[in-house]
């Protein structure tokens, strides 16, 4: 019988049972608006503020430095647009890396249309940003630098502390997208020295529709959603109380469990990487071999097409992504892998496995036993089984994003 092995934990994670249980009363008896002055509202308000303390604690911030949002995308949009516009007096230059999520690069493109100048920071073949390039790109009129803490697609951990050190020289603010890093590594905003940091609840066993943006005390941000006085007027809209409560519980559980989760994940991940490389010829690990997230394994499988591989694996009960979850939908070559220098025909065969707190040894064994035959079968059907040829048509499929 087929097992179900879910290794697509950067698409989303399965919410923890405790999270779901904790949320339910805020759909039922405590359904009040957190701004209402009577007890039904006040109980909702207390729950939101408790969640704020938990989320702050997870990243070693102060509760008043946390703004609740609808998720990672909104947090990233608010950081890029809100921080750049709020500091326009200093200058109009923004730096983001080429391997950022679309919720960073697209708002950066929007800023370009609004008169900002945006520099895209290149990466090496492991996906690590080029610090020398950054040092030269920073100017007196640079207002903001945004570099992710870890890349969701190849798992590479970025030298964010170094980015902060360089950016401070010109007085630029630093934002980091920690959406992929949070579920797999300890994060301390003071240790990193960043001015802003994005989180998303559904990647750490919380609900969808909840996220947060950390903004260091004293840093001005222009809202992107105007409304009432929620979140101190920085983000309008009635608070999504159940989702915020769920995020708070997820943050507490993650903080408690991370120290035991990480070594367990890492051992399984190492076993997966080693096992697949031994069993499948023409398979290449993408991302940094050591400086990568402990529960992340990403590869390029030569002579196969990622989408077909995903579907065949899913048929066997194994759920993964090819490229990033969003680019696999858009049927485009991943801008992350192309920034790292991979040609389009290789990028088509990318696959990534993201482990969760619940991944078992048997799950990894099942992948090790199942995937080689899937790849073999696909290669039998592949027009490239005798090697690469007629590649021009693949080049056209490269995402023109960068």
């Amino acid at each position, binding site marked *: 019988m087929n097992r179900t092995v879910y290794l697509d934990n950067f698409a989303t994670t399965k919410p923890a049972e405790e999270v779901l249980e904790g949320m339910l009363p805020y759909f039922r008896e405590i359904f009040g608006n957190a701004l209402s002055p009577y007890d039904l509202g006040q109980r909702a308000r207390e729950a939101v503020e408790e969640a704020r303390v938990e989320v702050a604690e997870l990243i070693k911030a102060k509760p008043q430095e946390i703004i609740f949002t609808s998720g990672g995308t909104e947090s990233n949009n608010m950081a890029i647009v809100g921080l750049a516009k*709020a500091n326009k*007096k200093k200058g109009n230059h923004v730096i983001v890396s080429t391997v950022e999520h679309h919720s960073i690069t697209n708002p950066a493109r929007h800023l370009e249309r609004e008169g900002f100048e945006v520099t895209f920071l290149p990466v090496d073949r492991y996906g690590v940003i080029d610090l020398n390039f950054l040092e030269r790109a920073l100017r007196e009129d640079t207002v903001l630098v945004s570099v992710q803490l870890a890349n969701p697609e190849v798992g590479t951990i970025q030298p964010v502390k170094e980015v902060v050190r360089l950016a401070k020289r010109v007085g630029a603010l630093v934002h980091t997208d920690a959406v992929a890093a949070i579920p797999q590594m300890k994060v301390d905003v003071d240790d990193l020295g960043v001015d802003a940091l994005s989180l998303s609840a559904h990647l750490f066993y919380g609900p969808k529709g909840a996220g947060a943006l950390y903004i260091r005390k*004293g840093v*001005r*941000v*222009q*809202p992107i959603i*105007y409304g009432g*006085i929620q979140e*101190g*007027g*920085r983000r309008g809209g009635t608070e999504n109380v159940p989702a915020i409560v769920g995020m708070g519980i997820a943050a507490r559980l993650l903080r408690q469990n991370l120290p035991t989760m990480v070594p367990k994940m890492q051992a399984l991940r190492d076993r997966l990487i080693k096992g697949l490389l031994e069993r499948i010829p023409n398979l290449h690990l993408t991302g940094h071999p050591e400086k990568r997230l402990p529960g992340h394994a990403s590869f390029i499988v030569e002579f196969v097409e990622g989408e077909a591989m995903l579907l065949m694996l899913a048929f066997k009960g194994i759920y993964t992504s090819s490229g990033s979850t969003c680019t696999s939908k858009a049927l485009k070559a991943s801008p992350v892998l192309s920034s790292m220098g991979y040609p389009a025909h290789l990028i088509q065969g990318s696959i990534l496995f993201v482990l969760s707190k619940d991944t078992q040894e048997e799950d990894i064994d099942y992948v090790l036993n199942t995937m080689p035959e899937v790849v073999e079968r696909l290669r039998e059907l592949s027009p490239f089984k005798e090697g690469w040829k007629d590649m021009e048509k693949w080049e056209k499929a490269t995402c023109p994003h960068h």
Partner: protein
Amino acid sequence: MNILDRPLNADLSVDVVYLMCPVHLLELNESIKKIEVGQVLELITDYDRALEDVPRWCEVFGQEFLGVYEDGETYRFYIRRKK
């Protein structure tokens, strides 16, 4: 309206730049409690309506409006706590 030609010394400064109505008024309600009677509060905002709202708030709540200093694109309002 008392327009100041230079900023005053304040015991507490709060920054609500980019935030809109009614955040500036809620912030006044909260912040005035954080200083002692006789001390001065500075409110920094870029919200134009504050030019009407802040003096009026002082009138309603019995606090002393010392004046406003226009600092480029922002205003600095000064309020002395009377009670």
